[in-house]
């Protein structure tokens, strides 16, 4: 009796081992968690008769670690701008040439020649946003469009500020405030940055990613944040205003790309073409609450997304700056400043 059960269990577990034999109608997507609209996936599945699996990662670096070795089994990934540049250099992406596909005309021309993929041979825009800060306009009534509020705050904001715990976001904001270039290796300028940051830290309350929770619980009155998070916080705290500092700010963009050695290459290409349709882009924006970069998607997006100041940049704001990854020696210097700041 016992050995019969034993045999059954062994047989069951062996069937699990055989697992997914690559069929013609599969697609394996590896995206950020909670970033893919399930209805959009269903639409794609019905349109092409493909079965889609969706898995989530929490950071670009985790995704890179998993796919670098090869054989991960994924077809589609959605890296950030700097990660695309890294992956292209490492030869991890398939050159699927979206610029030759039928829906390429929908891509907003200003996102075609970007530093991480000139002419769009490997990837297409997915969502993009800006990283700035948002502040309660009843607490601070002055002009919000300046980085001085982060580094030299007025009395009513001292001790009520949250910064993102992100080395690049904090250091780049500091460099812009001092009007120094990004990817800076100039030791004198970095020393000045270091002193300025340490002095400014006395006025910060916390350095934390959970921006929405901190703002809605009134823990802080000003927080560095991504534009989508600022918009969501504003729902619960309507006095918040998103700032577009005149000194400049960081833009980021997530892009859909195909992995080299993807088991379902043809389906992956179909998916890329599908993601360039205004309807798919609109559905993604509705879920993720960011701008997409595909023309004509506004009519599929929620009303608030087409009018929110966090999503639609006001006319006078400077263009967002997409900062390429810096050389190793610069990153090492930044790490020293960051470690010192976090002491």
């Amino acid at each position, binding site marked *: 009796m016992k050995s019969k059960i034993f045999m059954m269990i062994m047989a069951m577990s062996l069937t699990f081992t055989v697992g997914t034999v690559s069929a013609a109608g599969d697609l394996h997507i590896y995206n950020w*968690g909670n970033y893919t609209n399930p209805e959009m996936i269903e639409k794609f599945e019905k349109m092409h008769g493909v079965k889609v699996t969706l898995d989530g990662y929490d950071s670009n670096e985790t995704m890179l670690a998993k796919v670098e070795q090869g054989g991960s089994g994924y077809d589609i990934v959605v890296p950030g701008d700097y990660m695309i540049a890294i992956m292209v250099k490492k030869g991890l992406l398939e050159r699927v040439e979206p610029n030759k596909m039928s829906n390429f005309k929908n891509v907003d021309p200003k996102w075609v020649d970007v530093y991480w993929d000139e002419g769009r041979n490997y990837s297409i825009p997915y969502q993009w946003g800006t990283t700035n800060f948002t502040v309660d306009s009843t607490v601070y009534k002055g002009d919000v469009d300046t980085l001085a509020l982060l580094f030299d705050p007025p009395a009513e904001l001292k001790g009520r500020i949250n910064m993102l715990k992100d080395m690049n976001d904090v250091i780049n904001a500091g460099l812009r405030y001092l009007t120094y270039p990004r990817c800076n290796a100039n030791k004198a300028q970095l020393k000045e940055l270091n002193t300025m940051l340490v002095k400014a830290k006395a006025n910060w309350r916390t350095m934390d990613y959970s921006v929405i929770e901190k703002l809605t619980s009134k823990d802080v009155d000003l927080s560095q944040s991504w534009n989508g998070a600022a918009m969501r916080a504003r729902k619960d705290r309507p006095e918040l205003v998103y700032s577009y500092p005149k000194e400049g700010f960081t833009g980021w963009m997530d892009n859909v790309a195909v992995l080299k050695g993807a088991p379902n290459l043809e389906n992956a290409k179909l998916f890329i073409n599908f993601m360039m349709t205004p309807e798919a882009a609109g559905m993604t924006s509705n879920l993720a609450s960011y701008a997409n970069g595909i023309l004509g998607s506004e009519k599929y997006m929620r009303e608030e997304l087409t009018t929110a100041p966090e999503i639609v940049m006001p006319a006078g704001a400077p263009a967002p700056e997409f900062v390429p990854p810096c050389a190793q020696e610069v990153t090492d210097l930044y790490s020293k400043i960051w470690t010192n700041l976090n002491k």
Partner: protein
Amino acid sequence: MADIATTAPRKIIKGIDLKYQPGFSQITWFCIVVLYAPIAVLVLFSFNENRSVTVWTQFSLDWYAKAWENEGIQHAALVSLEVAFVAMVISTILATMAALVTTRTPPYRGMNIAVAVINQPLMVPEVVTAVATLIFFAIIKQATGISGIGYLIAAHTAFCIPFAYMPIRARLEDMDLSLEQAAADLYAPPFKVFRRVTLPLLMPGILAGAMLAFIVSLDDVIITLFVAGPGETTLPLYILGQIRRGVTPEINAVSTVFLGISVILVTFIFLFGKDKK
């Protein structure tokens, strides 16, 4: 580790014994609160009506209903349970064999090394095991072209073995050898001795080891993160993937349910472990 089950009851010496030092109970309570308060808050907010995880409005079971219907959570929970179950079965069988070999034989050269190898997942940092396993499986996948959930199950089985091994070995050392010797004296062949005498006596230890292996497999994050392939997201991975983009109280609800399962299983382990010899 072998000493755990065989220490004689200690005599309590007042004045030197730690339990009677002043401030001991206060420190204990402080530690318990610091460890468990976050979990209590997690469970509490799973019953919160609004979406925030910091501001309480009203009692509601909505999030449990939402979590129940969420396809991503359902699929992840099923994968977690499937992997944990199979890994538990295989690792318990292997751990039983390992425990018998390392206790019922006279010590041979290299036995300590064998025990160390069995316990390797406990001693090496998990991320090292995870990356090494990832690279190893990548080589195999590219050489043979076979993919599937078998890789994940194999990885889980490997690190579950020491967790199943410990309680079984402890139980074996507790057991009275004379019963097995008596059975052998009565002309029972070794396998019959095992099947009719050792195994029933060992059953509490095996069950405890199996449940421990199940829980450990269910909870694992780092190795699963690196080894899981497409469609093999387990529940902890699903939760981790949500963190960057904002966690809803559905996660609180799911976590509370899994916490409940773990508590029930650990209670069973505790009760079985206290079984009479």
